[in-house]
């Protein structure tokens, strides 16, 4: 029954369509509407004004970018060499993958909470670092920028790694052999063959990782310093909604979040299109 969309089939789509429209599109549009109106319903730009004209609120954008961009770069940059290395499979693959999955399933809240103790001034990490002699006093990992960055890396790296690994494993292994036969060293093969073919996967991975990092919330609250250095844009949105009960401004901030995420994604996709002109063919022959 392969074929087009006949009447009967359309019906099957209705539940999912209704769901997406009611629970996603409508709230989004409603939020957009709210962001341009005030509490009484009349149109205004004041909500956006509260974000863009107040330096205390405006800085959340830079703070969030300052956390999310490096975190994403680290995740993707680390994931690439490791994925390339493991692309032909390796011993202990299942165990390694299992350990990478664990932080993802446990979630940010548990990890942030745990990091408070583990990476605290008296925690094991500092004890170890001092015992080895790398530092002489405890390093401050918690309640600051570093803690939030680390939590983003701990959660983001496995995801980036597994995603890029999956992508790179799909590249025809004969391409590398061909490259070697033509005289290219392993490094050359990576730069001229593997990497260009990985670009689409890297681009998607970067985008997904970035949006996750940009909307960081619990770790910024628990592990960071929400009153200042790690006051990210999600915190601002939440505060306007649930502390000041100004849903209009909160919606405006959410819209700005979405807009910024969209801009970064577009920029990455432009880069990807410029780098990889060849057709989608990455598979066999």
């Amino acid at each position, binding site marked *: 029954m392969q074929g087009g969309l006949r009447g009967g089939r359309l019906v099957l789509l209705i539940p999912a369509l209704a769901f997406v429209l009611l629970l996603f599109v409508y709230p989004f549009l409603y939020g957009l509407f709210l962001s341009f109106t005030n509490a009484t319903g009349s149109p205004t730009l004041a909500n956006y004004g509260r974000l863009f004209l107040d330096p205390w609120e405006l800085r959340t954008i830079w703070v969030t970018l300052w956390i999310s961009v490096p975190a994403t770069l680290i995740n993707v940059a680390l994931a690439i060499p490791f994925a390339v290395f493991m692309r032909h499979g390796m011993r202990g693959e299942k165990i390694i993958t299992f350990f990478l999955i664990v932080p993802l399933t446990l979630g940010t809240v548990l990890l942030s909470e*745990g990091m408070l103790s583990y990476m605290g001034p008296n925690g094991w990490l500092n004890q170890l670092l001092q015992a080895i002699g790398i530092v002489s006093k405890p390093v401050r990992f918690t309640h600051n920028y570093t803690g939030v960055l680390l939590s983003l890396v701990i959660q983001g790296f496995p995801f980036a790694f597994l995603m890029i690994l999956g992508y790179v494993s799909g590249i025809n292994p004969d391409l590398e052999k061909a490259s070697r036969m033509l005289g290219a060293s392993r490094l050359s093969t990576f730069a001229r063959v593997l990497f260009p073919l990985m670009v689409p996967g890297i681009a998607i991975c970067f985008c997904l990782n970035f949006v996750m990092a940009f909307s960081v919330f619990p770790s910024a609250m628990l592990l960071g310093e929400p009153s200042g250095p790690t006051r990210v844009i999600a915190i601002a949105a939440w505060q306007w909604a649930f502390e000041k009960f100004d849903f209009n401004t909160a919606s405006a901030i959410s819209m700005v979040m979405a807009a910024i995420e969209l801009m970064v994604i577009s920029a990455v996709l432009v880069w990807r299109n410029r780098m990889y002109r060849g057709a989608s063919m990455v598979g066999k022959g």
Partner: protein
Amino acid sequence: MQTRKLTMGAVFFFLAMIVYVGNVLGILFTVILNSASKGWYHGLLPKIITGEWYAYVAGDHDIAYLLFITFLVAVVVVAVSILVAFPAAYVLSRSEFRGKGALLSLFLLPMIVPPMTYGIPLAVVLYKFHLAARVIGVILANLVPIVPFVILILMPFIEQVGVNLESAAQMLGARRWTVFRKVLIPLTLPGMLTAAILSIVKTISMFELTYLVAGAKSQTIVVALYADAYAAGARPPQAVDALAVIYFLTTMICLVIALRFVSPTQMVFKIK
């Protein structure tokens, strides 16, 4: 390549993995030990082991109720998701039509857009309709990323059940609904099982949406944990860790069960 040759790359890789895994384990064990210790402020291991924090947590929270809500939400979300997603996945796997790509993107959007971005408008809407601060609200909110997730998982399973099987059933006289019931659903049961398990694991650990929408009596355990952790001064940190351990055990048990049915890599690509 000569097998078993230890290259620089291999050494580097294993070291990095050890560092990573070591830290993750360190975090987990710190939490576990802390939850059962007293007066552990310095030193490698706690000097006193006690169960008093668990007693504290039990008195502080109605753990049973918390777990009940958590699983209730997870199971209802999963059940509804499968009901909504299956027909959609069927159409998307079997049909070609103009705008299919756009429709697919629309369906997948809630999975890609991070919860904090659409969560607040969603919460506003749910409050408007008096659905928030109730279990029903939490269920509705959690549906948003899970339905696309289930669609994505089910599609390859449905594609695997070749169209020919349905055609064969039709040739033998079965009507549409019977084909669905007797051919498609039994054969995609493994897929639905996979989707169900992965979704349960994911829902239990989903924080932001529930946090924005839940009330005092409709919290899931991860939200309770966050609330305790954030209100740092209000209770002893070991008690917070005790609750963390309970949450950790809940997720880990579900994860281990899930891994009997799916491979670890499948978990990730679908988990976000």
